[in-house]
């Protein structure tokens, strides 16, 4: 996995609450065999009309936000089905940070597995950043994972919390598999006693 570095980008405001994984990537796109390429269908039903034409009003279709790496979102982001296609679509679009007051469990976990940093903030802080995000191309935020700080357009700083193990993994670009691979001896040892006891397996 790519190392997570400092992200400086325009932040797109998405104030809807309860954005579910179906809205993030609808069921018809689950037939893909790739992780990549889902970005074009991110938020498909909000982003395009029935003929596939972009809907002008949707935030990611506006000029200022087309290359946003940061989303500031309404409460309870990522609820619904467990499909990992949701973080894949976000990552493929270029989203690296999502800021909200709360996230659905599985989605939250899936983000870290895909190099996305979900940041939980108290409501007033999220609302402040939402107002910043609404300033269009001037809505530049800097997210520094190492220092756990978000720098606002006016230079002031908002701190955030993150699980230390997950921070370590993101900063170093470690994925779960690489970490487990380091424990391969333990797995080998386990197998040895396990299969001696249960030879039929």
């Amino acid at each position, binding site marked *: 996995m790519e190392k997570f570095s400092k992200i400086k980008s325009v932040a797109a405001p998405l104030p809807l609450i309860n954005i579910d994984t179906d809205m993030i990537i609808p069921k018809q796109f689950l037939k893909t*065999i790739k992780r990549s390429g889902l970005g074009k269908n991110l938020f498909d039903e909000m982003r395009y009309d029935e003929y596939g034409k972009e809907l002008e009003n949707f935030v990611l279709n506006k000029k200022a936000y087309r290359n946003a790496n940061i989303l500031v979102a309404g409460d309870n982001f990522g609820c619904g089905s467990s499909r990992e296609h949701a973080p894949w679509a976000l990552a493929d679009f270029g989203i690296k940070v999502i800021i909200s007051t709360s996230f659905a469990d599985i989605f939250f976990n899936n983000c870290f597995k895909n190099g996305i940093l979900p940041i939980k903030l108290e409501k007033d802080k999220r609302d402040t950043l939402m107002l910043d995000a609404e300033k269009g191309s001037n809505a530049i935020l800097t997210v520094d994972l190492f220092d756990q700080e978000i720098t606002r357009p006016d230079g002031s700083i908002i701190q955030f919390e993150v699980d230390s193990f997950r921070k370590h993994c993101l900063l170093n670009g470690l994925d779960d*598999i690489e970490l487990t691979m380091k424990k391969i001896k333990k797995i080998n040892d386990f197998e040895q006693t396990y299969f001696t006891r249960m030879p039929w*397996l």
Partner: protein
Amino acid sequence: MSGKKTLYDKIWDEHLVSEEPDGTSLIYVDRHLVHEVTSPQAFEGLRLAGRKVRAPEKTIAVPDHNVPTTLDRTDGISNEESRIQVEALDKNAKEFEIIYYPVNDIRQGIVHIIGPELGWTLPGMTIVCGDSHTATHGAFGSLAHGIGTSEVEHVLATQTLIQKKSKNMKVEVFGKLGNGVTAKDVTLTIIGETGTAGGTGHVIEYMGSVIEDLSVEGRMTVCNMAIEGGARAGLIAPDQKTFDYLKGKPHVPKGSNWEMALQSWKELFSDEGAFFDKSIDINGGKIAPVVTWGTSPEDVLPINSIVPHPGDFDQQKSLAVKRSLDYMGLNPGQKLEDVEIDTVFIGSCTNGRIEDLREVARIMEGRKVKDGLRAMVVPGSGLVREQAEEEGIAQRLKEAGFEWRLAGCSMCLAMNPDQLSPKERCAATSNRNFEGRQGRGGRTHLMSPAMAAAAAVTGYLTDVRNLM
């Protein structure tokens, strides 16, 4: 802690490879089941990282979600995306040398049907699959649950899973089931009672006389829907019935290995007095044949009830009920038995086994599918299909007016061409009645195979007891 363990505790401890101070654990996986929808990206990940499948002999793959169930499927899959997904599995299975049952193998079928049928599923195992209904295998006293695609890749590469332990929940169904009441009614009634979030964060162990009396296949139906109650997995302690069911299946241990395995399987039960974080009791004698009326599996009622009023629920649920009644085209106060249906779907990993088909055939004895109704039977596997043909069930069902299909998930989730049209109303033996689940705008009523057969006869939601 007392030394008393639940069945879940026992299986967990047996598979614990390592544990961090915060409880994050590495769990060994005995069987990894794979299907075409949630695996391509995992194999691609392995390929990119130059990794191999650690235990190809413990990894069993089968295409089921996307495959057509019409007889012409030997000519190939016409939907291009589905075809590509199935071909990707063909290729990955070959390249990574895992065990594979391709579309045209008689053993092909829904992953959760073929695992137990071929003897891949054994008591005391940990079993995972990139599919939430993996809980089905818990009927054998194995810890079985669904995982995401990154986890599929993790298991392929390491044969382990990173997990934190869940809580223990006990569901005891006591008493005796009445005539016409089946495992499906039991599992739906439990979800109606606990709600779809009632089991969240827990592994459920089902017990009590009703569960003991169920056949092994009935127990699979119960565990299959543990996930609909929010639980990660469902478990039932194995007993003599389980052992008899397993004996002689192709991949079940034989000879002295069988004897040794049997000794160890007999230890798989919750110790008397073991601690459960949550318990509920249900009187089996009070369970009636049920159907769902809404768009969540918890929206369930005995067949002789009326459609509820949104005002009967708390505020948040009330809005959801209003929306689902709209979607379902039902009116509060309407009798469920007055609801007319268009289609009957018999199949899925919940109810696509031989006993389910026998039950349908029994109800259909001397009866016909009502004129104008679309009715299909999709056996859960090629072997179930073959067995039904040998027993003459297939012939009887065809004569009664059912379409007799090839094995697959089919209209359970409508990723293949078997779909409902908008507003088409279906009596289904599957497990999810979400909006659009069986096709955009389709209306699903979940029920047992016997109840679905009764609906096929009358064309309405029907109390099967009236036909017995």
